């Protein structure tokens, strides 16, 4: 199964940044934890389509979360292009089946990817149904995040912060 962004979504102007507040991260983490428990999955992750990890639950994937995020987002984005070549508009999931572990990835609107990693003890059907349910709740969280992003951003990114970042870049990225 291949996932795909819709053409309409792809042509929309993307946001410059997305700001996750304490409250929203708590909601996301609770959702992921519940999903993980209900499906008996080994881990659950929410990643941005750019590959950045928003939240992760479960011990198995924490170590490699950054790399996993980059790879899974790349695979998903690539599958979108495959879908376009097939004139397919609404493949929104990927199922990767291994001997021990499986990964089910589904889109949350055009922004996030919900990733469930589970073993042989869990049936894919359960993962699909409960992922869909969790995605619907995550859409509401995403909506709130989008609405709050510019206000929350100004609380972090100020002149002082920008100046310190520039100093750090000069210090770290040098020959």
């Amino acid at each position, binding site marked *: 199964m291949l996932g795909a962004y819709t053409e309409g979504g*792809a*042509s*929309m*102007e*993307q*946001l*410059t*940044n*997305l*700001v*996750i*507040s*304490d409250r*929203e*991260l*708590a909601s996301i983490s609770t959702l992921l934890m519940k999903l993980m428990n209900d499906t008996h999955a080994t881990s659950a992750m929410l990643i*941005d*389509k*750019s*590959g*950045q*990890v*928003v939240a992760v639950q479960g011990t198995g994937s924490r170590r490699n979360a*950054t*790399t996993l995020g*980059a*790879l899974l*987002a*790349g695979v998903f*984005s*690539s599958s*979108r*292009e495959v879908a376009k*070549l097939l004139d397919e508009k609404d493949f929104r999931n990927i199922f990767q089946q291994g001997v021990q572990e499986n990964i089910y990835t589904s889109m949350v609107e055009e922004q996030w990817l919900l990733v469930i990693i589970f073993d042989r003890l869990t049936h894919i059907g359960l993962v699909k149904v409960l992922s869909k349910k969790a995605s619907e709740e995550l859409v509401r969280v995403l909506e709130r995040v989008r609405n709050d992003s510019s206000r*929350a*951003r100004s*609380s*972090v*990114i100020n002149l*002082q*912060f*920008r100046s*310190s*970042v*520039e100093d*750090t*870049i*000069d210090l*770290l*990225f*040098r*020959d």
Partner: protein
Amino acid sequence: MALINIATHEIHCKIVYYGIGYCGKTTNLQHVFKSINPNARGEMLSIATETERTLFFDFLPLDLGSIHGFRTRFHLYTVPGQILYERTRLAVLNGADGIVFVTDSQAEKFEENVQSISELEINMRRIGKDMSTFPCVIQWNKRDMPNALPVSVLERYLNRRRVPSYEAIASDGKGVFATLRAISKSVMAQL
């Protein structure tokens, strides 16, 4: 798109190195990987063919440490340069916060460079980004090659938007960090 996680005090930004095959994108990342303080970088991941050409992307996570309580991270990606991987380049571009366009300065690569920058503009429009305001820098790489075109010529034909540009010999590490500094600051200025 940058991700600012107030709850975990983290900021993540994505920088993509774009350009034709063999222009030195992977070489840029390899130099950063081996030269930067090991505490400031994660493992470099390369998805390459048997002949070491980039098949999907290279990935190098950098960690600037805590700045005003916020852990700031840059994720560097390269795209595969070969013409046949156009759709893969588009996939990697998704969600980028900044672009480094790496140019092979050699005269015989001129036309390919022109096509590549034109493709980049098209791809950016496809993902809904406006290149006139998007953080972008150009690197004139392979300045040590005997057939390298003068920078003034490259500037005139390949840098019509007049974005900041840097001369480099990535295989020797020259200009690699100057380029990275410029794009990193440009990305942070857009946050």
